[in-house]
């Protein structure tokens, strides 16, 4: 049986992990490579590297770091941030990424998902959608959740999956940062309309939030979080042990 995946997300800017971390045994707390190794040795099932650099210099640094990480960490690696063209796909795949996550790029260029899926295969293309309720309707937001595109989210996600997106990361802006649990209502709505894996993002505050997620919505395949892992509020090894104890299919190392 396929296990439920736990995915830490690392925001990288100018070659450093943005959110502060402090783990025992980790010499450089903001080194993406050190942190990636730490997570992969402590039960993470997959990693997401998110490039939030604006400058060309920072971008070069990001690809260097990606290359080094991919040469040392042997679990699936997804890369997102600044993916607007097929050349961007090519750039990060050459550095060892397994999957590429598109967000604003897919909103700006509606054929990007289709073109990328055709060239690299559906399994390589991850749609990352930032979604927020506006007047009772799910709407797609762009630019890191700052700009309402006005597009209805469920139709947009379905269309991207039909065009070849092989997975969907659903980030609820409504629950993001609140730490009161994942947005189960939004996740259920999306899980019901797509047949590809759905990854929950936004709102996890404790181990129990993941247990509730997988118990309530068996169709959700993975849970993604950043700061609760980086700050050590949730240790992935503890989380995986509790998931297994709750009868959720979990990978053991």
């Amino acid at each position, binding site marked *: 049986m396929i*296990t439920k995946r736990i995915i830490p997300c690392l925001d990288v800017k100018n070659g450093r992990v943005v959110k502060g971390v402090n783990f025992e045994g980790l010499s450089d707390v903001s080194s993406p490579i050190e942190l990636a190794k730490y997570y992969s040795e402590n039960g993470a099932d997959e990693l997401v590297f998110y490039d939030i650099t604006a400058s060309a210099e920072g971008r070069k640094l990001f690809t260097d770091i990606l290359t080094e990480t991919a040469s040392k960490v042997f679990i699936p690696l997804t890369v997102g941030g600044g993916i607007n063209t097929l050349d961007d796909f090519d750039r990060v795949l050459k550095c*060892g990424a397994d999957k590429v996550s598109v967000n604003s790029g897919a909103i700006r260029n509606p054929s990007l998902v289709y073109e990328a899926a055709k060239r690299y295969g559906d399994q390589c293309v991850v749609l990352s959608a930032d979604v927020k309720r506006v007047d009772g309707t799910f709407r797609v937001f762009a630019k890191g959740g700052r700009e309402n595109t006005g597009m209805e989210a469920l139709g947009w996600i379905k269309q991207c999956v039909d065009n070849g997106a092989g997975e969907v990361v659903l980030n609820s802006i409504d629950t993001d940062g609140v730490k009161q649990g994942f947005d189960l209502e939004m996740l259920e709505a999306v899980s019901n309309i797509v047949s590809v894996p759905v990854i929950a993002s936004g709102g996890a505050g404790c181990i129990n939030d993941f247990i509730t997620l997988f118990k309530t919505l068996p169709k959700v395949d993975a849970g993604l979080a950043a700061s609760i892992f980086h700050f050590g509020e949730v240790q992935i090894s503890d989380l995986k042990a509790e998931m297994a104890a709750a009868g959720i299919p979990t990978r053991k190392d």
Partner: protein
Amino acid sequence: MIAIIDYGVGNLFSLKSSFDAIGANTTVTSDAEVIKAADKILLPGVGAFGDAAEKLRNSGLDKVIIAEAKKGKPLLGICLGMQLLFEKSFEYGEHEGLGLIPGEIRPISDVIPNELKIPHIGWNALEINGEKNAIFKHINNGDHVYFVHSYYAKTNSENVIATAEYGAALTAAAACENVYGCQFHPEKSGKVGLNILKAFCEV
């Protein structure tokens, strides 16, 4: 030295890095002489079967691989590289493979219930079939490995060395004497995956 065959299909960076991590000497090559001189051969692959099989044939490397395998040189195929070891595939038409392991490649939709997602993607447990094959020397029954595939190898049970449960017992790994294939990605399967590659280096 292990020759990692480069025939223009997919990125070989992670695969080479994973062998580096276990201290194995590899060369990424499309040179028939290098492949002939190698101790072992690794056949990678991602994408569609028909396209990959054609590239292998056009490069002439298909004949080199078959000849070396028939001499007894250990050969490991990974993911699509594993599927290419079989006689034929029904992925978008009908395509001939290398024929080193009896059997054919069929869509997993033939054998799994409709409600399960395709591709079969994620970490799944290996159920080792019968006596442990040499490439599983350093791992245990039930260890998890990472899969991404929509087609599976339909073959004789004696060639199936491990399965993964996904609505049906899908072929996870196969072997026929010195020819081995993993449907999953050992280079993306953490310590378990590295231990499989290490065991292949030792066969």
